[in-house]
């Protein structure tokens, strides 16, 4: 299969603080990659470099042949192909659920309003929230918000979806709902990069697990290999602590 995302010697510094240290990764179409690792290891930063929410200090990020580190690339166009779901959902509180979802298609893709709403309702049905289309974000539970956020990202028909700890701000009971939606997405062949602490989910859904620490990738392989047979001792150590609570 084709390479969707190519990360080449990616370096990110905040001032003197080196957060990503020459990361090399190639992600293929339909890959479901889970990124795990301790807090502060650079997982979020890595993910945010993929759609240039953070400006890389050096190195290359090539998405679908577009070189994001090239000044001439129209980043707003590239971003339309990359959906992103945040830990804190980041819905627009002043817009209804339907408007949250249709705003970008209508405004950026110049999609017809009726058509955009039809598509939005389909997406809401897919995440089980068709009845909430006129509600405002404040009246939704955490799990519902996160599902709307996923629908909003999907409304732009992205080829790639990025998730940054999508369930860690949720009540334990709500976590399942969101993971279910993500499982379905994976089944439909979406290319996904997921930062998560849900090891169970990683085992079950990912076809590739990446372990990061201190700005380096220490392990990278199938879930089976990483969880049961980690290359690095640090990985083993981390997994040991997290799994044996």
């Amino acid at each position, binding site marked *: 299969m084709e390479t969707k995302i190519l990360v080449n010697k990616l370096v990110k510094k905040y001032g003197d603080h080196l957060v990503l240290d020459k990361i090399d990764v190639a992600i293929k179409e339909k890959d479901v990659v889970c990124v795990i690792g301790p807090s502060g290891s650079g997982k979020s930063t890595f993910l945010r470099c993929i*759609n240039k929410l953070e400006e890389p200090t050096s190195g290359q990020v090539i998405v679908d042949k577009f070189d994001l580190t090239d000044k001439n690339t129209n980043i707003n166009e590239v*971003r*339309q192909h*990359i959906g992103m779901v*945040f830990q804190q959902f980041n*819905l627009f509180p*002043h817009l209804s659920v339907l408007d949250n979802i249709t705003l970008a298609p209508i405004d950026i893709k110049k999609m017809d309003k009726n058509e955009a709403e039809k598509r939005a309702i389909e997406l809401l049905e897919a995440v089980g929230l068709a009845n909430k289309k006129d509600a405002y974000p404040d009246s939704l539970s955490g799990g519902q918000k996160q599902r709307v956020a996923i629908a909003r990202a999907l409304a*732009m028909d992205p080829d790639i979806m990025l998730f940054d700890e999508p369930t860690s701000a949720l009540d334990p009971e709500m976590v399942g709902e969101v993971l279910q939606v993500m499982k379905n997405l994976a089944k439909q062949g979406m290319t996904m990069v997921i930062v998560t602490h849900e090891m169970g989910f990683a085992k079950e859904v990912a076809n590739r697990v990446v372990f990061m620490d201190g700005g380096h990738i220490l392990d990278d392989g199938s879930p089976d290999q990483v969880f049961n047979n980690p290359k690095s001792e640090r990985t083993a150590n981390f997994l040991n602590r997290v799994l044996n609570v």
Partner: protein
Amino acid sequence: MKKKCFIFSLIFFMACTLFLGINSQKIHAENKVYKVGTDLTFAPFEFQNDSGEYIGIDIDLLNTIAKKQNFTVDLKPLGFNSSVQAVQSGQVNAMIAGMSVTEERKKSFDFSNPYFIGGISMAVHGDNTEIKSYDDLKGKVVAVKTGTVSANYVDKIKDKYGFTVKSYDSADALYDVINVGGADAIFDDYPIIDYSITKGKSLKRVGDIQERCDYAFAVKKGTNQELVKMFNEGLKELKQTKEYDGIIAKYTSNSSQSNDASSIDESTFIGLIKNNYKSLLSGLEKTLILTLVSFIFAMVIGIMFGLFSVAPVKPLRMLSAFYVDVVRGIPLLVLAFFIFFGIPNITGKPMNEYIAGIITLTLNASAYIAEIVRGGIGAVPVDQMEAARSLGFSYTKTMRKIVLPQAIKIMIPSFVNQFVISLKDTTILSAIGLIELLQVSKIIVARTLQSSEVYLITAIIYLVIITLLTRLAKILERRFR
């Protein structure tokens, strides 16, 4: 979006209406128009009644004469000293301001025939039957206002009649002291005594009028001779028709038959309000207009600098920070003085005090509004910007569709609070002579001499308006959270 537009057009509409309101107050001209200077307040000769119109002996005489002689008066209440200057520099044609004829003044003025004979008189409490002449003053206490002709006079006669003198700085203290029994008699200009009797003070005059002097209408030496002639002729006619006596009686007569508003007793709180609520309301209206007009300009400038302060372009951010720091680092009154006195000194052109006032308030408020805008945008979580950018929105589109709609809700209560601050700040501009609520109060105090009551009423008016606006801000704040 619709709601915002509505609010802004409402404000704009109000501002326009009020502006037009101001303009339509100008006086229509007919016949020959003469500008006549007068004092700001010198009851009973000239003072504002409760509708803010100037009335008094001088004004009524002048207007009646003008009607008879077919000329039109454009009255300029400039104050006594400014009127003198204005006559001399030709900015007005004449003045009438309880001005006494002196040899010194005759050098630079031509006077009409005297229309009134001033002088001083003794007065005692209305119930006092003991003091019937100066001879009864032996061992008594006599009160006067410091630095007046009366003060000189009692000093001259005090040894002869054997009384003690108490001096007071303000006229209201003088008139109060006789009521509370702190003095047995007072000496003051007799028209002022008579006027305070019509205002309900329990007083009666005793003895003859002393130190008489003539009050006359004046023009600059050698100019406007036809005006003086008309005045003299009109005055003669008024005296013949007894209209003259009517006018004098209206302001000094004990009987006060005329039941007009100015006869309400202003020594009580209620009387004071009854008699002045119209001028206070007009002062409040001017305060509100000043605030509103400068606030609208300040919103335009402030929002611009506020957007600059979050722009991704560094020079704009620096410009905005500089503007805000400088304007907020200069006290409002210093700014007002610099604009009102300093700028004309540079340009050589005089500056209208309203324009100076509005510029001052606008500059000041705009700096604070810029900070409110910056704060409001800053209060929208960065998350919102990131979420929109990651969907493919450009910076400007994100600002317009996502950040600003949320920021405005956060800002509105602060805007109301800033409006309250601007409203309070208008009072400061009374120092450069702007007529607003506080200035109106000063004028009323000058006439009624009831400073504690008048300033208390003024404070309460501000308190009520500001409390209402502050409540509004709190309600909006709660609503928008």
